[in-house]
């Protein structure tokens, strides 16, 4: 294979995005910044973010910039940069950067920073490959720092053990399934039962890794037992969704471009989204609330991924990004508040408004951003997801609506319980640190910017989705028949009745 002219800068940007956090991790690991590891970590993640945005810019500049390198083994490439990667890389880099900026000092010693940076580099690398074997390695490489960080946290042993059990199951299922698919490729003509069974094993792995019912319990457990940075890094990027897209999309044996496995997964995901949102209503602590919300929102993404309409697929991609950014913000605000005031119960009003009004404002803004506040990306995402789901299946649309309604009530209850109630002043008013304010403002600003001006993102996601489905842009669903279409003001007599 040869590299085209535009591939080289793309590859250089990708390398910079992955190598920068790796280099910083190495530097800190060798004792290069014992006093304040935050600075090199921030610098490296800024480099990763800029490099990722460069890749996005390349992708948006024209249709012929998809980078595919390496042997096409098992349906994927070693290096694969397309529209999905171009959108997800800056998203992951921004989330990791915000985590490092807001993390309280006592949670950001040398080893913890190294773990965060290694995890960030692995996740960035993972989103630039579609090679099944590399994906397996990346699953393990991303899970290990999370497990180790959780295990090292006081009181995190239960969560670490649950996470280890779940991940072992997921990786084993993924490995066996992938090997079966490679041995008997179901996407090739004449693919047999072995490959098809492998596909279902991979689906099981995705099910477990994504916390879909009945394998969902590790989500809230991790949020309760691990540092917030670890829990967010484990759940927000949605590695399993990415794997599902890479392995189940565009197969020749599926007429509509979506694997049958994904359709089954999406039905379970719909249930999970609603169930998670319902559980969020009765959580007794803030971490449990964020964990169950993350479980619900993550399931919504998978539910939308099986959509046969570009609208639904686009809604899933938008939810991926909007809920990821919003939940990161919500988690970081909760973490900042916890580091000042201790664990936060939702059983009685905690009265935190008076001593942390800005955190209250950010909590509310991020919470509402996760549930479809107009003017934010989640409003666009909800609109597309609900419309697409209802267009396709009534029950799917109703479950998506139920999930969004329940999540919204849970978020508002959380806000009222944490910040409302008689003031419990236990010291001076808690001002936000400049780094916290910058990170939270940048996150919220991104959500608002993409919400007020969503057209470029939606257009690129539609292009990426069409490429994945193997249909022309706007091809499917664009020519759908509408019972009353065409009965506009110019043809009032055209009532479809």
């Amino acid at each position, binding site marked *: 294979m040869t590299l085209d002219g535009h591939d080289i800068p793309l590859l250089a940007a990708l390398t910079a995005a992955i190598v920068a956090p790796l280099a910083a991790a190495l530097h800190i690991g060798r004792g290069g910044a014992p006093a304040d590891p935050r600075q090199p970590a921030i610098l490296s993640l800024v480099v990763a973010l800029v490099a990722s945005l460069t890749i996005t810019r390349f992708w948006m500049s024209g249709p012929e910039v998809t980078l595919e390198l390496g042997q096409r083994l098992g349906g994927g490439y070693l290096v694969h940069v397309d529209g999905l990667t171009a959108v997800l890389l800056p998203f992951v880099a921004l989330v990791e950067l915000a985590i490092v900026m807001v993390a309280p000092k006592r949670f950001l010693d040398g080893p913890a920073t190294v773990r965060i940076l290694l995890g960030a580099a692995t996740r960035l690398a993972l989103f630039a490959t579609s090679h099944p074997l590399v994906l397996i390695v990346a699953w393990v490489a991303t899970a290990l720092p999370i497990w180790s960080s959780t295990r090292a946290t006081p009181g995190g042993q*239960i969560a670490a053990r649950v996470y280890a059990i779940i991940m072992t199951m997921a990786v084993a299922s993924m490995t066996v399934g992938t090997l079966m698919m490679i041995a008997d490729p179901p996407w090739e003509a004449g693919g047999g039962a072995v490959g098809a069974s492998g596909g279902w094993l991979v689906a099981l792995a995705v099910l477990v890794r994504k916390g879909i019912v009945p394998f969902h319990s590790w989500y809230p457990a991790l949020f309760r037992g691990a540092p917030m940075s670890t829990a967010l890094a484990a759940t927000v990027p949605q590695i399993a969704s990415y794997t599902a897209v890479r392995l189940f999309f565009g197969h020749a044996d599926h007429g509509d471009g979506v694997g049958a496995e994904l359709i089954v997964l999406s039905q379970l995901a719909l249930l999970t989204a609603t169930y998670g949102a319902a559980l969020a209503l009765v959580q007794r602590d803030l971490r449990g609330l964020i964990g169950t919300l993350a479980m619900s929102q993550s399931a919504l993404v998978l539910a939308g991924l099986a959509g046969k309409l570009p*609208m639904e697929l686009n809604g899933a991609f938008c939810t991926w990004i909007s809920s990821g950014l919003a939940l990161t913000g919500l988690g970081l605000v909760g973490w900042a508040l916890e580091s000042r005031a201790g664990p936060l119960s939702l059983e009685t009003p905690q009265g935190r408004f008076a001593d942390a009004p800005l955190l209250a*404002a950010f909590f509310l803004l991020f919470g509402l951003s996760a549930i479809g506040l107009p003017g934010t990306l989640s409003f666009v995402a909800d609109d*597309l997801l609900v419309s697409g789901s209802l267009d396709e299946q009534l029950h799917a649309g109703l479950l998506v609506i139920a999930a969004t309604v329940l999540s919204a009530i849970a978020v508002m209850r959380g806000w009222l319980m944490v910040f409302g109630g008689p003031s419990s002043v236990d010291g001076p008013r808690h001002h936000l640190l400049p780094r916290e304010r910058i990170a939270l403002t940048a996150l919220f600003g991104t959500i608002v910017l993409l919400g007020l001006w969503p057209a470029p993102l*939606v257009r690129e996601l539609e292009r990426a989705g069409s490429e994945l489905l193997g249909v022309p842009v706007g091809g499917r669903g*664009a020519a759908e028949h509408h*019972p009353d279409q065409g009965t506009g003001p110019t043809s009032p007599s055209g009532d479809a009745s």
Partner: protein
Amino acid sequence: MTFFAAFLAAAPLNRLFGLLDVSAASTHAIVSLLVVLQLAAPAATLVLVGLPALLDRPLREQTTTRLVGGAFTLAFLAGLVTLAVLASRGFAPEQVHLGTWFSVGHHDATVDLVADGLSVPYVCFSTGLCALVNAFAGKYLHREPGFTRFFVLLTLFGTGMNLMVLAGSIDVLFAGWEFLGISSTMLIGFFHERTNALKAALRAFTTYRICDVGLLAAGVMIHRAVGSGDFERLFEGVWPNADCLVSPGNATLVSLLLVFAAMGKSAQVPFSNWLPRAMEGPTPSSAIFYGALSIHAGAYVLLRCEALLDAAPVARVALVLIGGFTAIHAALVGRVQTDLKSMLAYASMTQAGIIFVEIGLGFRVVALVHIVSHAILRSLQILRSPSALHDRHELEAALGGHPGAASWSVVKLFPEKTQAWLYRVALDRGFEEMAVARFVVGPVRRLLERLEEAETAWIDWLGTPAADRERDRAGRRQQQGRPR
């Protein structure tokens, strides 16, 4: 409509505009500009007041009230000029297409606004009220810790209201509707240190979100039916005599969903119990939300889609029944309230119910006039309520006792047993809350709590090694004094 046309025909501004002989294209450009101004003024103020507060640098009180008051006054004046322009053209609707927000497949989210005989008078009325309440609140909330927060929420509400009223598509209307719900919730919980205020805010928000399902689903159905959310594809003609362009089946489905959505915001039975509790918020917000604008938001949506209701007799019957029942319920319950704000809340609910009946019966202009007149009267009553209580106390002090209640009541026409029963029903607020709590909220909550307990137990079991579990069990047995 004739009422407005006659009123404006006599207005000097309208005569002046008529003399200018402006072309249709110029009229469209002028109206577009004015409509955008009505929306942009409160939205810009929201950013100007909200952003410094978010950066921990809130503006001074005087600056805040001047900015907010200026924005609402500007929007009000822009509305008046638009009204004059429209009146001179016989209230023919002017569509303002601001562009396509985003587009995927056949799904176009357009940003369309509409200036017509419904939206523009309503904007004048709502921005005028907001400007007055701003002036009142500037004094009323002086040195209140949440001063800036109140005005941020007031501008958010104003922006949402104008967005909803001027919406030319269901997508834009839904966005405005959501802003209304959020600002309303936050203002009910304004005094966040009071537990009752928190409970009231959560109750209101829950009701809103449940009923928002109706609007959300209606939006999707409209997109499915006509491929877009634009109202001009749903109906055409001059309000209130527009013609429906969709099939009766679609019109009925969408209308019923809209009625469901309207029931929440307009506090119709069985979604009414949030309203009396919403009075936990500051008096200015109670006046503008639950006496004037928010309580009528549902009715406005129904008026906007009146052409659909014309093609949906089932929905109209439902409206009459729901509105009638709510009016009777609220009139009855309101009679036994022991505090002034609750009494006014039930009075608002009664009028909202009657307005629903009017819309259901097809009296659209009557309903609009009713909304405006009721809103003005009720907001005055609520704003006056603190000083009215003070006056009452002074009167009682001067008289040396209770001045006495009215001696006659319509209830006295009923037999004594019925009177006693009605009194009991009214005291228990028609058993509405009890029924909802016992048969809906309670069982759902208990089920979810059991599920959560099971989840926690499962995680503990899975996350604890077998040896540790056995050791824990042994320890517990030892503590209980039951050796193995």
